[in-house]
């Protein structure tokens, strides 16, 4: 198989299409790694092309099957082996899936806790370290990590693209959920690096959709059907793992992200709620991970998945499943009951949308188009909820629910690779915004946001701080990301010390902390003493964030225990600032 990647077609075989492909060998590919399904798309010189696997699927199930000494990911779906994987094989305990929900999370995270009912093993100790995950191979649990699983999947995905275009692939644009922390982003990048892929950009999913929307609006303008005036779009994306909302203002091919918000709620939660509803002893029954229990858990999952899908078009569904061991589930589930069971999820979606509209300083009346994407946007309750909040009768129609994000990523891939199109269909730009506040710990345990959320990227902001003790010579800069008012409620990204601060009474020294995010979303923090100036002050420090690796849940506490408030900073009151 491997030698096929570099097969050079002879001259007589070179068609016009292949010539066009050869023009852009370095174009970055767009990848949408979904919790449930993945897809890959490439700008082929004329348009975005979604690639199909050997089973002719554009959306490929996200999993990696562990068997004896071979591994196969959902890209080929085991099609090259004796038989293709069925969903029941994926749920047999031998496959790892839902990587996107697990990656970069600590074992205290509630998402990891909720993943313990999956067929494969997710073991937690609840102490703020990486969870232990393992797949069943020959009746033994074999350990792995979400990064490794993702890397194996990406390797297969990369091979698919290389086979199709007959040249090596290096650069990629990946879509990620808005709710991903910077720490999780580094994990995704590491998985890509393991698979030999270089990440040009990590794009929040709804912003990729916004780029596609901008292209479509430009196309309408070219065809003299658009008005050219600014259009406000609310993009709602909900897949199996995450829910994201973005508000974008689009005109002239430029789509400016006005606000972003997201949460870790998706189809997986809906599925688990329904499973618990159908089988009240669900948690206690499946906690043991014995062979027969894994099997009945798989059967229940398949039946529930099927029911949830059918309820998008049917008013009610009859579920009859024999779980083995004398356990049966037979029930008629109506749509109203389904909606009652998932009430909390719909409320959370509502909160995220309201938050996004509030942050964008817009009223529902200002919205021109409501774009619904992701598998869960097919659920009637979700549709009516989003449209209701935006006071719209219908959603934007000319976008594919499952292909929009990956198509946007492929467009960004072409733009970021410097490809231009004579017809102007790549004259596009998305002005990204930061999804979360970035700041440092100051005034005790308070979180001082330096770059507030929804700031346009690239961005640079700074803030002045001062010492909290007389003759304080060292200060700790602890960098956090999140929405909490207290520093400890947020994600700790890293920390460093400013040393050699000139001796002075407390509050007399001015320390500047500057945060810089470049177009590739790399965060750098600069800090140093700005007053008093002179040869006695130390040079500034530049630190690329995040600096922390695993177990960062502990670091904040360890720092507090070690230093107390000795190295604390305080925000310099505005009246003292120049």
């Amino acid at each position, binding site marked *: *198989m*491997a030698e096929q990647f570099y097969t050079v077609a002879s001259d007589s075989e070179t068609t016009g299409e292949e010539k066009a492909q050869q023009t852009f060998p370095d174009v970055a590919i767009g990848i949408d790694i979904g919790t449930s399904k993945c897809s890959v798309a490439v700008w082929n010189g004329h348009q975005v092309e979604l690639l199909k696997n050997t089973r002719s699927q554009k959306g490929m199930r996200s999993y990696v099957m562990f068997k004896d*000494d*071979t*591994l*196969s*990911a959902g890209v*080929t779906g085991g099609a*090259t*082996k004796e038989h293709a994987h069925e969903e029941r094989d994926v749920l047999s305990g031998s496959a790892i899936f839902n990587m996107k929900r697990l990656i970069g999370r600590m074992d205290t995270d509630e998402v990891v806790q909720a993943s313990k009912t999956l067929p494969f093993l997710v073991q937690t100790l609840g102490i703020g370290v990486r969870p232990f995950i393992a797949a069943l191979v020959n009746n033994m649990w074999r350990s792995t990590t979400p990064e*490794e699983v993702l*890397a*194996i999947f990406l*390797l*297969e995905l990369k*091979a698919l693209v290389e086979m199709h275009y007959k040249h090596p692939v290096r650069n990629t644009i990946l879509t990620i959920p808005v709710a991903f922390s910077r720490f999780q982003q580094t994990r995704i*990048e*590491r998985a890509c*690096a*393991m*698979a030999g892929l*270089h*990440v*040009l950009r990590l794009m929040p999913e709804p912003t990729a959709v916004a780029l596609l929307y901008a292209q479509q609006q430009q196309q309408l303008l070219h065809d003299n059907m658009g008005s050219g005036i*600014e259009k406000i779009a609310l993009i709602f994306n909900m897949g199996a793992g995450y829910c994201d909302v973005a508000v974008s203002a689009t*005109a*002239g*091919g*430029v789509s*400016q992200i006005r606000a972003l918000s997201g949460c870790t709620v998706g189809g997986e939660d809906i599925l688990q709620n329904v499973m618990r509803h159908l089988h009240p002893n669900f948690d206690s029954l499946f906690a043991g991970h014995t062979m027969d229990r894994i099997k009945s858990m798989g059967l229940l999952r398949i039946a529930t998945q099927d029911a949830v899908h059918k309820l998008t078009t049917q008013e009610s569904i009859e579920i009859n499943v024999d779980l083995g061991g004398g356990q049966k589930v037979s029930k008629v589930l109506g749509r109203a009951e389904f909606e009652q069971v998932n009430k909390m999820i719909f409320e959370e979606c509502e909160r995220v949308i309201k938050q996004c509209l509030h942050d964008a300083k817009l009223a529902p009346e200002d919205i021109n188009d409501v774009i619904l994407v992701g598998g869960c946007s097919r659920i009637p309750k979700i549709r009516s909820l989003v449209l209701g909040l935006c006071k719209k009768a219908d959603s934007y129609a000319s976008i594919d629910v499952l292909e929009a994000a990956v198509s946007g990523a492929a467009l*960004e891939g072409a*733009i*970021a690779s410097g490809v231009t199109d004579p017809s102007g269909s790549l*004259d*596009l*730009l*998305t*002005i990204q915004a930061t999804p979360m506040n970035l700041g440092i710990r100051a005034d005790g345990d308070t979180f001082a946001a330096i770059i507030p959320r929804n700031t*346009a990227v*690239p*961005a*640079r902001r*700074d803030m*002045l701080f001062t010492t909290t003790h007389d003759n304080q010579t060292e200060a700790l800069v602890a960098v956090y990301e999140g929405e909490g008012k207290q520093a400890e409620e947020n994600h700790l990204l890293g920390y460093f010390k400013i040393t050699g601060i000139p001796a002075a009474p407390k509050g007399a020294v001015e320390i*500047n902390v*500057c945060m*810089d995010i*470049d*177009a*590739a979303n*790399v965060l*750098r923090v*600069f800090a*140093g003493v*700005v007053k008093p100036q002179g040869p006695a002050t130390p*040079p*500034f420090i*530049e630190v690329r964030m995040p600096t922390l690796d695993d177990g960062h849940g502990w670091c904040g506490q360890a720092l507090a225990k070690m230093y107390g408030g000795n190295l604390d900073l305080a925000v310099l009151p505005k009246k003292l600032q*120049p």
Partner: protein
Amino acid sequence: MAAFASTAAVVVAGPVVLPCRKGARRCVAARAIAAAVAAPAVAGRTHYEVLGVGAGASRGEIKAAYRRLAREVHPDAGSGDGEGFIRLHAAYATLSDTDQRARYDREVAALFRRAAAPASFRRRTWETDQCW
């Protein structure tokens, strides 16, 4: 592809050094300090000059100018390193907000008055000198 060899490669990969990204720029501390003391008119250019619009420009004109220039200075679309876009966005963010724009206009006017006053004073002395 699914053979064990490829898996082994993944496992062995171990400590991964992330390649330096395209467009990553080093920002010196001095520049950070310069940004810290950002006065209304940095380096002699007002927000209006950055956007290339007149002082009486409407919100629509400001928005259009922002979009047009963003396509030139944003690192994703043009050849900028981000500095230009940060300046442009700061100008746009101030002028697109009615309150902030009014405050900015007052500050700039005050700045020009202060700058103008000593100049006219000097000119008068120069004229007096000439009379002598």
